[in-house]
């Protein structure tokens, strides 16, 4: 008698070894030097030797705040006066929209990060992008048409 075929042995997948606790950075990079060189040449072709970070991505990681851009944050958008599509569809007219007081509105305007880099205050003095930060730590003065911090060396 020829019996039925034997059962297929269950192949147990061996668990991979845990990743190393410490990596010697120099050895790790040097052992992959060839791959790194080829990858670097590909990236050079892609980026066209332009390694500058994009302007809209220049933020420190912790203080990055995209509340204005997020559509879920409705309260802040209403505060800023940005007309949402949902609000427009609901039939609210511009007259009914809540207007901000000038001090709040002006503060948000001066906080903006414009492309040319400067905001103009009431007496036609230009503010730096970092004006708010510098105003907390330095004495500010108006020189040559700019609002500049006074630094002692």
């Amino acid at each position, binding site marked *: 008698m*020829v*019996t039925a075929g034997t059962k297929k042995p269950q*192949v147990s997948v061996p668990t991979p070894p845990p*990743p190393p606790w410490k990596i010697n950075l120099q050895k790790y990079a040097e052992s992959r030097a060839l791959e790194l060189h080829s*990858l670097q040449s590909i990236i050079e072709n892609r980026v066209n030797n332009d390694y500058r970070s994009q302007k809209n*991505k220049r933020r420190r990681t912790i203080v990055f705040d995209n509340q204005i851009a997020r559509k879920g944050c409705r309260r802040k958008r209403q505060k800023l006066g940005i007309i949402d599509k949902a609000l427009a569809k609901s039939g609210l007219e511009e007259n009914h929209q809540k207007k901000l007081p000038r001090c709040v509105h002006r503060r948000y305007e001066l906080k903006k990060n414009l492309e040319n880099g400067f905001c103009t205050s009431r007496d036609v003095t230009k503010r730096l992008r970092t004006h708010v930060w510098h105003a907390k730590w330095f004495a500010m003065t108006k020189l040559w048409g700019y609002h500049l911090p006074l630094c002692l060396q």
Partner: protein
Amino acid sequence: MGTEFETIEARITSMLPQLQSECGILQRMVYKNKNQHRRSSYFQRLLKVRRDLRLLQSANMEELVSSCLLVIKGDRPKQKLHLLGSLKRRKCDGDKHNFMERLLGAARLLAEMVEPILKAASEVSVLFAQSFFMGFSVTIMALLARLRVLVQQILLDVVSLFNMVSSLSISKQSIKITHNGIEVFRDFYPVSDDFVTLECVWKSDKFILLERKHKTNDESHVEDSGGNVSVQTSDVNYNSIESFLGDDQLFHERVEADVVAKEDPNHIDDMNTDLLTGSSQIDDKETRYSDQDTTKAFINESSQEAGLPASSRSSTNDKLQSCPKKVAFVSIKNLTLMRHKS
């Protein structure tokens, strides 16, 4: 062909553990640095690379590659038959996909993994340019460089394995199974369906996967050449082939004659009855094989009565295809007789 798949086997079995270890290091790096970097764009790219690697791990590449190598090598004939038989299942049947479809899915995933790796590397190179987080960026660049090379090489090997297995599954072949000293020849006939071949084309900085569908030859031509090929491929020489190729009427007449002749206890009559019981077993196996589609092969001596009506039901086409199967099972009977005598 032989040496080619051996190099592919050696290469891919050495690369898959490397890929696993690199994946482990990447997950560890992501885990450690998630709090500090999580909002930045380069870290979002890294998370996409990690997602693709997890998908690839869930595809279970080691099992797929070992299945392909079993089909190509043929050193375990039962499993080879099982795997080739599973290819005949259609995609509509049940939830499970056969291993070729899973391998095709894995190849598609490998082809799409290269682009997120390159984007993540270009974002991390901006960190390099600013010399921010140098330890982190050096490690990630080295990791991505190795991952890119591994992924593309595995893709090439998977594509060539896929093409080998698909060409094997199209052609007709006979497989020899040895179990406890008894040899059985099983013949594999392909289904006349469309089959897919894969091709990789290098475009500027990565490989792109192309899928081509082909159609098999005409069915009549396949059936005509099937009988000849199957007879030629089996190397065993059989003595009494012509006695089984007769018509149904002759078969019934022989049965009646032998029933009458059973009363005389002669040696020649014993041989005739043994041959007839062997033929009835053959008919029984045909019906069971067509019903169950299993690779099991066993002998039932008590199925003489059930075999006779089955032979009348079978059509001429089935007879043409099943001729070598009949011949193959007679040899088992002879071998068992030899064992009983010795």
